[in-house]
């Protein structure tokens, strides 16, 4: 086994912390992390519960390979019912927190109820207690992590916490660990905040000594690390250029959602790309990017560490931002930049630092600003209401709006509702570029048809990480498919969704799949975990996890009509590039996708599907 077989259950209302055995029958059907935590959540809460009420629960969960010597084995997920969407929320983070939780002897922490005053959970192996966090309330992520480490007199304590946005109920607030790694999407931070839970601080010294076949595990993980090292993408491309290298790729193929999806190419993309991050700047002759960084156990190291230009208007009087900090990733650079028409690289770096510092999702935030700027240009929003002139392209508007959202001030409170609620408030719901209330990431559904289906059917609202068909449709991994056609995409999306559901339940990073197939992960699981972990079992498990999430959403009230894209993507054709003249073919793909899934025309798993998957 690779599980610790222990769950920590914390009831904030009663202020109790209890240890209970992991349900191993479920572990064999749902593995860990995303799959297993969702099984617990779906079994313990009413899917119709108010996400911000004490009756919702929130789970921090590791996978069986978290904390092991498998490459990238440092992942954990936060699973809850999400306040942005009302659907299942499952956000995945790297860094070092997940491995530390495992080293402390816990597979999972289930949080229930609501504390009467701010608390944080302190875990030192078996010593677990709720501590007062009144003095941490109102503090940023960065301040909170520093203060907890200082109070514990231990720099190796790992902290997973919320910033001010989580306290203020920003519906896309994140949970951040290790200063700039985040369980970023769907508002899991707002759920923690609603429970008066500021942080989980963990120190583990027990290690992971419970591998089923240690000798075989060492052998197979070594072999698989070699594949990652020798692969040109995971061995060279990602470490050197990070995810940001996609900026020019996606722009060149005309799939760059620009100015709230009005356009599909951004004229300023080159100025905010990975290539630009490597260039010496005029002020000091130094590049913004200073290094790459790895999460626990990772042999890829795609993370970006950057230094902002200290003479930039955003930070010239704020030395605390001058040091090395988490740098721009592609999705953040897109949302803060292209979605708003902003091409000021240092303004984007400043905004992404604020998202890390106060814990909010740059994708949903940036896309919401895109809607604000469109409403401003239409005259629906005014300078008086917004607090600044906010046309597309204004870096000053972007950075000002980031600051007031982080602090929860003025119009920032409305931005914190996300684009769906904001656009409804101002009478233009059609301008929210979202599915199930969650904003799109960085690929236009008109130019990459499979991603349209990915967004429409994602169980946590619009998301690229549930089935990253960009791999196939654009990058040719594992095989190249045509991004402009809908043909074959329902099967492609289903295959990616099911495989990703397994990867997200292992404790490994989905970026390994740029070099590994599921068949490379299978022997690592087989060596680590007791029992049968055949490919057949994993394939079925992925499908089971996907359908379990779907059943949760169905029970929460989601139906066929929620598997859709905004009218803009279905009626306003791409103006330029290879997709010129095309709209999304989502309506054509959905029936075929439902059929492949074994769902009825309303998008519900049929009795036969439920029985086949053992749900």
């Amino acid at each position, binding site marked *: 086994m690779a599980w610790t077989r222990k769950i920590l259950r914390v009831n904030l209302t009663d202020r109790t912390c209890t240890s209970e055995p992991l349900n191993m029958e479920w572990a064999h059907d749902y593995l860990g992390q995303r799959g297993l935590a969702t099984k617990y959540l779906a079994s313990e809460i009413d899917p119709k519960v108010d996400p911000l009420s004490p009756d919702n629960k929130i789970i921090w969960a590791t996978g069986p390979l978290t904390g092991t010597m498998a490459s990238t084995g440092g992942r954990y997920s936060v699973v809850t019912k999400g306040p942005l969407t009302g659907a299942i929320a499952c956000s995945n983070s790297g860094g070092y927190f997940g491995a530390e939780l495992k080293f402390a002897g816990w597979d999972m922490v289930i949080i229930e109820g609501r504390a009467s005053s701010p608390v944080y959970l302190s875990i030192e192996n078996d010593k677990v207690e709720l501590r007062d966090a009144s003095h941490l309330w109102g503090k940023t992520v960065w301040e909170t992590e520093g203060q907890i480490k200082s109070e514990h007199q231990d720099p190796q304590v790992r902290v997973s916490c919320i910033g001010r946005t989580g306290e203020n109920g920003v519906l896309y607030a994140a949970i951040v660990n290790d200063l700039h790694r985040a369980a970023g999407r769907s508002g899991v931070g707002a759920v923690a905040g609603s429970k008066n839970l500021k942080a989980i601080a963990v120190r583990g010294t027990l290690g992971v000594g419970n591998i089923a076949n240690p000798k075989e595990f060492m052998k197979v993980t070594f072999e698989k690390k070699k594949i990652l090292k020798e*692969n*040109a*993408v995971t061995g*060279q*491309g*990602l470490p*050197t*250029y*990070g*995810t*940001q*290298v*996609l900026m*020019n*790729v996606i722009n*060149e*193929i*005309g799939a760059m959602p620009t100015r709230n999806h009005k356009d599909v190419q951004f004229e300023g993309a*080159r100025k905010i790309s*990975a*290539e630009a991050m490597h*260039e010496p700047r005029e002020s000091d002759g130094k590049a913004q990017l200073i290094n790459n960084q790895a999460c626990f156990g990772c042999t890829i190291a795609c993370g970006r560490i950057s230094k902002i230009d200290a003479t930039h208007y955003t930070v010239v009087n704020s030395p605390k931002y001058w040091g090395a900090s988490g740098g721009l990733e*592609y*999705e953040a650079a897109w949302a803060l930049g292209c979605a708003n028409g902003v091409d000021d690289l240092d303004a984007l770096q400043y905004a992404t630092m604020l998202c890390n510092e106060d814990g909010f999702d740059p994708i949903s935030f940036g896309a919401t600003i895109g809607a604000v700027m469109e409403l401003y240009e239409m005259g629906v929003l005014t300078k008086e209401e917004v607090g600044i002139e906010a046309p597309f392209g204004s870096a000053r508007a972007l950075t000002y709006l980031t600051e007031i959202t982080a602090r929860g001030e003025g119009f920032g409170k409305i931005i914190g509702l996300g684009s769906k609620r904001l656009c409804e408030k101002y009478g233009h719901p059609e301008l929210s570029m979202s599915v199930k209330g969650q904003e799109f990431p960085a690929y236009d559904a008109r130019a990459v048809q499979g991603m349209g289906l990915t967004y429409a059917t994602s169980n946590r609202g619009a998301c*690229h*990480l549930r089935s*990253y068909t*960009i*791999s196939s449709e*654009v*990058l*040719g*991994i594992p095989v*190249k498919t*045509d991004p402009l056609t809908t043909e074959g995409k329902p099967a492609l999306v289903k295959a990616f969704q099911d495989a990703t559901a397994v990867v997200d339940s292992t404790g490994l990073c*989905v*970026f390994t799949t*740029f070099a590994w197939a599921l068949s490379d992960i299978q022997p690592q699981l087989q060596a680590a975990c007791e029992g049968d972990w055949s490919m057949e079992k994993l394939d079925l498990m992925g499908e089971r996890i996907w359908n379990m999430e779907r059943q949760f959403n169905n029970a929460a009230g989601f139906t066929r009509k929620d598997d859709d894209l905004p009218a803009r993507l279905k009626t306003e054709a791409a103006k330029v*590039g*290879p997709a010129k003249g095309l709209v999304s073919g989502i309506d054509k793909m959905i029936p075929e996708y439902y059929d492949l899934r074994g769902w009825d025309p309303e998008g519900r798993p049929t009795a036969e599907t439920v029985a086949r998957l053992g749900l």
Partner: protein
Amino acid sequence: MRVTLKLYASLSDHLPDEAKRTNEWPMEVADGTTVGDLIDRHQLPKRLVHLVLVNGHYIPPASRDAHPLVENDVLAIWPPVAGG
């Protein structure tokens, strides 16, 4: 005829200095020049020539030598990269 060659990521090293800040290298080529011809002419390492686009359209490896460029075409090339 005039075409533009764009080289990104580690292939940027093959650009002349004046093109490094834009990644765009406009050039005159003879009629009938193919994608493969330009790759060979600029001695781009085959192992780094991975994602090849003409005007944003993907050109598979087997078609590159025979794919003729026409006036104002934009040929963009990346080494193996990914993101997300």
